[in-house]
């Protein structure tokens, strides 16, 4: 309809004023475009180039290998696929758990209680601690000695001490617990501000409509939070795919390579082993493509379910 009406109008001539307007608009976006070009597009092209060569940091383009690097990491050497699997496992555990815990926590904070301001501060504080420090702290909590808090606790209940970070069954879970602890307050705060914008009368109407509190949560609260949940789902997924510091500090990728992540693979190949910079480049490109696909799928699959005000 609107296309038709637009087409029947005579084409508008560019007046001097609108040309000036146009120039002005371009002048405004130019810095952003330049910034993107220099710091995003150029490095990306560079990275692609890098992934096609054999070399190291001082001499990145020793010999051209074409797509050999990709074949190496995807087919010939199993390590990359293992790290990808480890990372995916971490994401699949971390995202739903952290998302639902932050949601539950924000709903709990929403009620006007005296202790809630205090609780909010307590839960937000870990977000301010550097990841490396948090990881160090939690390494101590999960220490294999009986002096570690985790082991102290389970001994209290009569269990044997456990080597939390040294066992492939629990190491990744420990990293996940640490990262959940570090970010839950931040995520809950975002949910909380969205919750506070829901008018109280809507809940009262639901109460008069005999809605149970569980039903109210799933039918009213959750749909109202869908834009925040959607945003968080995407940022959490992409960010946790890039997990590095905390694993490196807490497990070093071990035991074996059972907790080694994609970013650790990239780091090792770029800086620790010689002449494998191309592999790191190829792994980076693969990771980027995976994240793009996931984001695209999220948008395709979920955006229709999101309620925008």
């Amino acid at each position: 309809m609107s296309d038709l009406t637009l087409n029947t109008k005579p084409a508008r001539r560019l007046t001097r004023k609108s040309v000036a307007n146009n120039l002005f608009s371009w002048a405004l976006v130019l810095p952003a475009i330049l910034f993107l070009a220099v710091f995003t597009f150029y490095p990306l092209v560079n990275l692609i180039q890098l992934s096609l060569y054999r070399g190291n940091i001082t001499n990145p383009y020793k010999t051209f290998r074409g797509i050999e690097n990709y074949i190496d990491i995807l087919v010939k050497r199993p390590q990359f696929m293992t790290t990808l699997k480890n990372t995916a496992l971490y994401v699949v555990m971390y995202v739903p758990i952290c998302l639902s815990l932050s949601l539950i926590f924000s709903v709990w904070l929403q009620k006007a209680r005296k202790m809630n301001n205090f609780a909010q501060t307590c839960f937000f504080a870990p977000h301010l601690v550097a990841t490396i420090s948090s990881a160090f702290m939690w390494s101590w909590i999960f220490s294999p000695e009986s002096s570690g808090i985790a082991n102290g606790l389970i001994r209290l209940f009569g269990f044997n001490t456990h080597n939390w970070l040294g066992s492939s069954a629990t190491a990744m879970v420990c990293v996940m617990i640490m990262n959940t602890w570090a970010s839950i307050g931040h995520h809950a705060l975002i949910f909380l501000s969205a919750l506070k914008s829901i008018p109280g009368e809507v809940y009262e109407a639901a109460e008069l409509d005999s809605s149970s509190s569980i039903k109210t949560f799933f039918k009213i609260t959750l749909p109202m939070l869908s834009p925040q949940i959607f945003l968080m789902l995407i940022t959490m997924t992409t960010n946790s795919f890039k997990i590095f510091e905390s694993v490196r500090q807490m497990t070093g990728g071990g035991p074996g390579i059972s907790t080694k992540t994609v970013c650790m693979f990239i780091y090792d190949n770029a800086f620790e082993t010689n002449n494998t910079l191309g592999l790191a480049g190829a792994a980076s490109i693969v990771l980027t493509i995976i994240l793009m696909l996931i984001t695209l799928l999220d948008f395709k699959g979920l955006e229709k379910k999101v309620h925008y005000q």
Partner: protein
Amino acid sequence: MAEIRFEKVCKFFDKARIIEDLDLTIQDGKFTVLVGASGCGKTTLLRMIAGIGPATSGHIYMDGRDITDTAPAKRDIAMVFQNYAIYPTMTVRENIEFGLKNKKVPKAEREALIKEYAAVVGLTDYLDRKPGTLSGGQRQRIALARAMVKKPAVFLMDEPLSNLDAKLRVQMRSELIELHNKLKTTFVYVTHDQVEAMSMADVIVLMDKGRIMQEASPEVIYNDPNNVFTAQFIGTPPMNIIDMPDGNKLGFRPERIALSYAPVQGDFTRKGTVLTREMLGSETLYKIDCSGNTYMAKIDDPNFAMGENVYVHVANEHLYFFDAEGQRIREKGNETLFAQLLKTAGGMSNV
């Protein structure tokens, strides 16, 4: 159907005493209108009936059953909120259906009810739309349908028409009256608009600062006000009130004034000048200055002009007397005092 009774009900918000020791009976099956200025506690009162803003002290009974602490869902009450409070993420259909689903009404019955009430409020064509895509008036009608479809024993409405345009408001007004005639359930309707109250109510409860000033039918409220507040709240323009030499107050309605160029003998008659004239259509509104007092007069004759000297005449039967506190002094039981007041009023005449 149900009768609601308040007994010594108080409502405080922290230190603010909004309602104190309120006693009120809302009659079964009647269309009761709570009317009062903004902030007088109407919504607060309604929320106590609904159970979503519990009373600080006192008791509320529904058909004799104490519901002071009963959960809202167990009260058989539906409410239309002042700001709609419809569920923004649900379609119109889901909004209307939500309460029915929660009460486990079978699907076929739900469908029939939705169809019926969507037609009543004129939303049949919008059932699958989200509220965000509808106008204010349409959203208000979702709220009405959502409340009606539950067929409650008591129907609470908090200024449900205040966001509609004038034409739709008049239309919805008569539709609500019709609806009440059809359902015969107890309606409690809140408004700040006295015209709306007068036109819809079986019983008007007039409130001021959390207290009930008068509770009566529109006719009684208009013709037989208990106090100056009621006399001046109801009627446009409000009743003329003037101080009498003995400290009491004299009142008469603008509609009861007779204007003339020649003095009329007897009763209350004063000489004055026309200050302003507003032609309203069938009637004309005059502001008349009578040596210091200004009166509003609303009469049929549009032919008096600004600046003209006229005589204001009010027959004794249309005079109201109030004491210094503003309470009405009625003839019954006070015959001697009343005769004295009439004489004083007559003495204020200056012709």
